[in-house]
């Protein structure tokens, strides 16, 4: 979910882009406001891919200005405190409903999205991006969370979630330090609904059993790479896209699978913020984001999750690892997609994880 493939290079690229953008637009800002699209997103996550931004400016004359968030609650806070401050905002399948119910995003005019009919209906028409017959997010990319492992250590490749609980794997396992993800895997492992497990005690007991196996809790993709390379763990919960980047970009011996018991699926929708100063520009930018030309450049030059536009996926070479992973129909069927959580559920999952972590630390 938290897809910040932050590294220094991208950070610098983003920072420079932002700096240059502000410097150029600084003085005549009011006059040029119509020529701007303000985007709120994770840093280094596609919308600020430099070649894509440049091509968009060339096509439309609109420049792209970014603001970033580091957690979804922060994204909500920024939308609440800065109405009219953003045009486009990235909301995923968990947060889009919450944002639209609160009136933080406005309905999409699908007639302005020329690729609309091409988008995968499973995501495009999902209730997670629609509400009361209105569309509040344009399905953009989707991905998975499964298990990544060290190919040099595990031969043949494992294929179950239960592998993490293998008593032989003392101090070999890593988890993401994320309450919702941990509870989701605990729920899958105990055969419950991933998003709304009814028996949280069972989930807690199951995760507590991991005490001796867990050696590391990761927070960012960058952490994960470093500790994997340092052999702090051999097997871990991980995003599918990140596992691909670890293998192709960092040449680490990383294998990845969606467990037999089930895996976590997520997708992102690009939304138009309420009171957006440039709604037409926002629609044009979103349309560019689902354009096969943009997507293939992003995926091949920087690495991206799978596009929600099948035509964009077709445009990729057959050897592309994201295309290969996305076309594994059986694995995709095993996914449960993340759903909106109530404040109460989020609090209970967070408390459960805090309780487990306290027990781990004893």
């Amino acid at each position: 979910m938290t897809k910040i493939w932050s590294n220094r290079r991208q950070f610098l690229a983003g920072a420079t882009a932002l700096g240059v953008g502000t410097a150029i637009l600084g003085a005549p800002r009011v006059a040029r406001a119509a020529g701007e699209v303000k985007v709120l997103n994770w840093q280094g996550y596609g919308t600020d891919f430099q070649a894509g931004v440049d091509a968009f400016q060339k096509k439309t004359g609109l420049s792209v200005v970014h603001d970033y968030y580091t957690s979804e609650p922060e994204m909500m806070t920024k939308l609440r405190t800065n109405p009219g401050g953003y045009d486009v905002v990235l909301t995923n399948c968990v947060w889009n409903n919450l944002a639209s119910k609160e009136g933080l995003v406005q309905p999409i005019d699908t007639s302005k999205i020329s690729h609309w009919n091409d988008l995968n209906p499973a995501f495009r028409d999902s209730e997670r991006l629609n509400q009361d017959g209105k569309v509040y997010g344009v399905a953009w990319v989707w991905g998975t969370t499964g298990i990544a492992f060290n190919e040099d250590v595990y031969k043949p490749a494992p294929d179950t979630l239960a592998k993490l609980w293998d008593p032989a794997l003392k101090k070999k396992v890593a988890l993401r330090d994320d309450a919702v993800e941990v509870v989701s895997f605990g729920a899958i492992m105990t055969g419950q609904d991933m998003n709304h497990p009814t028996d949280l005690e069972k989930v807690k007991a199951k995760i507590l059993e991991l005490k001796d196996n867990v050696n590391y809790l990761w927070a960012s993709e960058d952490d994960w790479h470093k500790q994997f390379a340092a052999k702090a763990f051999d097997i871990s919960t991980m995003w599918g896209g990140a596992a691909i980047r670890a293998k192709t970009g960092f040449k680490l011996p990383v294998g990845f699978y969606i467990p037999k018991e089930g895996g976590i699926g997520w997708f992102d929708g690009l939304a138009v913020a309420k009171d957006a100063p440039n709604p037409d520009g926002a629609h044009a930018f979103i349309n560019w984001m689902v354009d096969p030309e943009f997507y293939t450049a992003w995926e091949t030059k920087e690495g991206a999750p799978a596009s929600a536009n099948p035509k964009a996926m077709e445009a990729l070479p057959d050897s592309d690892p994201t295309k290969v992973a996305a076309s594994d129909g059986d694995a995709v069927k095993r996914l449960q997609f993340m759903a909106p959580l109530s404040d109460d559920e989020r609090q209970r999952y967070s408390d459960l994880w805090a309780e487990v972590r306290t027990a781990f630390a004893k």
Partner: protein
Amino acid sequence: MSPRQRQIWSIFSLTGPAYLWLAVTIFLPLSAMLYCSLLDTSPLVPRPAHFTLANYAAFFQKSFYLPLTWWSLQLGFWTTLFCFLIGYPAAYALAKKIKGRWREALFLLIVLPFWSNALVRIFSWTMVLRPNGLIDAALHWILPEAPHIDILFSYPAVVIGLVHSYLPYMILTCYISLQAIDDSLMEAARSLGAEAWTVFRRVVLPLSLPGVVSGAVLIFVPVIGSFMEPRILGGPRAVTLGMNIEEQFTVTSNWPLGAALSFTMLGIVILFFLVLYPVLKKRGAFA
């Protein structure tokens, strides 16, 4: 302007900016958070808020908060203790045994780590403590058959990292109070027949206690609220109240609970010093 008026004016003009600054940067945000901790919904959420004490009650109702707090307090205790055991002798040597240029050079070495970023210091410890890291590699170079040292992601790793980060506070505060002890007091004790150990125990240690206490305060308080060092060096085997407070702001967006937990922690710290205060006052630590 009479001399008296002039004096009042000068007090105001000299202290005014500092108090104004403190009021704006500390008092106002802190009051806002105190107010927030008494609400039942986060600010900015479009829902009417009501006053409640439920966020403070949660600390006692949820079973994990007490062990979690205890864990944080123990961490503060061990870190402070090791800082004292390592820092005090160093401060003593600097104040009483080493003179001139060498003292300046050694001071520089003590303060040097402060010039680097705290995060960088902690990350460099991960390279030292991990299996096949510096310590482990050095040991195997001497004793190839020795078992692997694997203390990264453990309680000792967190204590090592924190002691390294906070040690200079202890050395500097102890140095200042040791420096202030007149050597003739020690000579007098010796001439009255006291042995070296007795001189230390009866004269030097009691007189330097104010430095030890202020060092301990400067270390203990930030350590129990620390979250960066425990997270990086402790991995799954570290959990502090500070980490849970952060979670209330970034994951659950439950600002009121996060604020209430912060004030509960503040309360624990104040309670801790209230209990210690009579002991310290008697010893003249706050004099």
